[in-house]
């Protein structure tokens, strides 16, 4: 240990420490502009770098021409309405239901691609409630309801979202024990626009005894056009009760997002068939954030591709297409078709 007697740099220490007040801001970029062109450029950069479906074969889009055409429509004199309209044009070309922009201070001011617009819903909840589910049904946290149909031969389950409550493995176990003497199950996810993908995955795992390779999720991982990674996806059997008798999954255009994961996971289960109408899609995961003017954006940053190379972001056709007869307010033809399919299964 050395010793000395003077401290000539002591005042300098104080000065340097004071200099460090908010020194982190030196490393930060300046705030972006909030004029129309800055906002447009900020949003386009987000889509350019983060959107994972520019090359989706289900919705081909010419990125460069879309950029040129929409950029030409923006200058700093147009209104917020007009700028939002330009973003709406971009979203309609992307045809991705997960992508939207809203004014976070006024959520009624938004644009999105309405994949469901003009498409029959193929679901009348009143008919389901009155003639199938009835009043004597089991309920799991206001999210999953189930009952027996056709003198106890058929189990009927409806899940209209994966968000309202919590479904645990023990809940699914209990339900499948209740269905142990059935010949098959109808799993009705029509009208289910998504929610928690972990919950959808948890339920799907109760319909296989074996680990099944489903495909992969393709993630955008960086700003470059080729910055993607692939995460293999497997349907792993649950540790609780497994149901391997016929399962008919009912679908419609509103089946979206986490419900697409549910469908994707069950696609290669030999005991599962899909009945109803084309799904809405919305495969993959999303990111969201704010533009510098406070508009809230969300977009798709991944997509599911199955082991046969099929894409799901813009929906999937069912194995058996059945439409609801809207003039018949006492029957649900899709449920009836599923009952028949189970009863005719060997």
């Amino acid at each position, binding site marked *: 240990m050395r010793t000395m007697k003077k401290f000539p740099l002591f005042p300098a*220490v104080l000065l340097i420490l004071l200099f460090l007040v908010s020194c982190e801001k030196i490393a930060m970029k300046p705030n972006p502009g909030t004029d129309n062109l800055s906002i447009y450029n900020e949003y386009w950069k987000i889509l350019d770098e983060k959107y994972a479906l520019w090359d989706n074969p289900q919705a081909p889009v010419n990125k460069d021409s879309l950029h040129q055409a929409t950029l030409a429509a923006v200058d700093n004199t147009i209104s917020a309405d007009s700028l939002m309209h330009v973003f709406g044009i971009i979203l309609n070309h992307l045809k991705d239901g997960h992508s939207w922009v809203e004014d976070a201070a006024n959520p009624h001011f938004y644009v999105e691609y309405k994949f469901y617009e003009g498409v029959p819903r193929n679901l009348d909840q009143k008919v389901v409630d009155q003639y199938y589910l009835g009043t004597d049904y089991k309920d799991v946290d206001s999210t999953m309801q189930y009952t027996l149909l056709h003198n106890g031969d058929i189990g009927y389950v409806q899940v209209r979202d994966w968000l309202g409550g919590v479904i645990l493995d023990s809940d699914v176990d209990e339900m499948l024990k209740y269905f142990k003497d059935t010949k098959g199950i109808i799993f009705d996810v029509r009208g289910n626009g998504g929610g928690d993908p972990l919950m959808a995955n948890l339920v799907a795992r109760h319909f296989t005894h074996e680990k099944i390779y489903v495909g992969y999720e393709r993630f955008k991982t960086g700003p470059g056009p080729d910055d993607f990674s692939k995460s293999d996806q497997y349907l792993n059997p649950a540790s609780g009760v497994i149901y391997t008798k016929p399962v008919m999954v009912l679908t419609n255009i509103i089946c979206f997002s986490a419900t697409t994961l549910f469908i994707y996971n069950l696609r290669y289960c030999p005991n599962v068939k899909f009945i109803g109408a084309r799904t809405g899609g919305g495969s993959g*995961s999303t990111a969201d954030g*704010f533009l510098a003017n406070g508009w809230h954006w969300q977009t798709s940053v991944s997509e599911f591709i199955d082991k046969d190379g099929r894409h799901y972001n813009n929906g999937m056709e069912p194995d058996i297409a059945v439409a609801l007869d809207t003039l018949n307010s006492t029957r649900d033809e899709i449920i009836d078709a599923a009952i028949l399919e189970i009863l005719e299964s060997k």
Partner: protein
Amino acid sequence: MASKRLIILTVLLLFSLGLIAQQATPEGKHKLLYLETGGMLSSFQDQKFSDVRYSGLGMGVRLDYSLAKKNFWDFGAEAFFNREHAATYDVGKAGTQDYRLFVTWLRPLITTPDATLSLGLTPDIFFSMRSTAQLSNNAAYLIFGYTVKVPVEYTRRINDKWVMHAGLSLQLFGWMQENMSFTYTTSQHVLEKGEFNYDDVPADISFVPLWKYLDIRTRISFALGKRWIFGYRWNMQESYQVAGYPMIKGYSALTVGYNIVNRIKEKKAH
């Protein structure tokens, strides 16, 4: 951006050299337990998602138990809570929480009758959570892990009542998990390795070198007698999950502390 980082590191290097050029004396053997609290200014920018800066006010608490004999040991815990807002819009307010446990070991390098200059090691464990209102998937930003830092500490007796402490701590490396990748709220490392799945959240506490994660801490404080201490702290963290898109957060805090355990064997100043 690299040049800005260079400026910060240069300033800190000069600061360190300044300390080393000076001399010090031991403050004396002691056992101290300081409870500190204070107010802070914080700032945040995650260039992966936006260049808009967030800033805000908050408060923190810190508990320090220090033992000084031949070497200096400091066992501490700190927690900070902040509320931040964006520079360019009124929505999306963010709440932040930062927790940290650390142990500092310091060995005096140079002493004079009035001052001590010490160098050592600080292993720490930390957890940071940032929650942004109105966002959905990207609402929660989590970082947790442990790092190894090198602290330089300079203590000087100013007069019979006041003792000054000035310190700089620079993280060398760490192991950590950050949940915000370039796109999704999952570790960038997990996505790049193709290990994302829906059955569980893959644990991924990965080695992080200095150039991917930078954590700098400075402090200057003035102890009044045996009981009170008044200080200023600055911390900056800069994380590169993706090259060219750093997340930067920092705070400046003014603190006041009270020594609960009063056991100091002092040397008189000359």
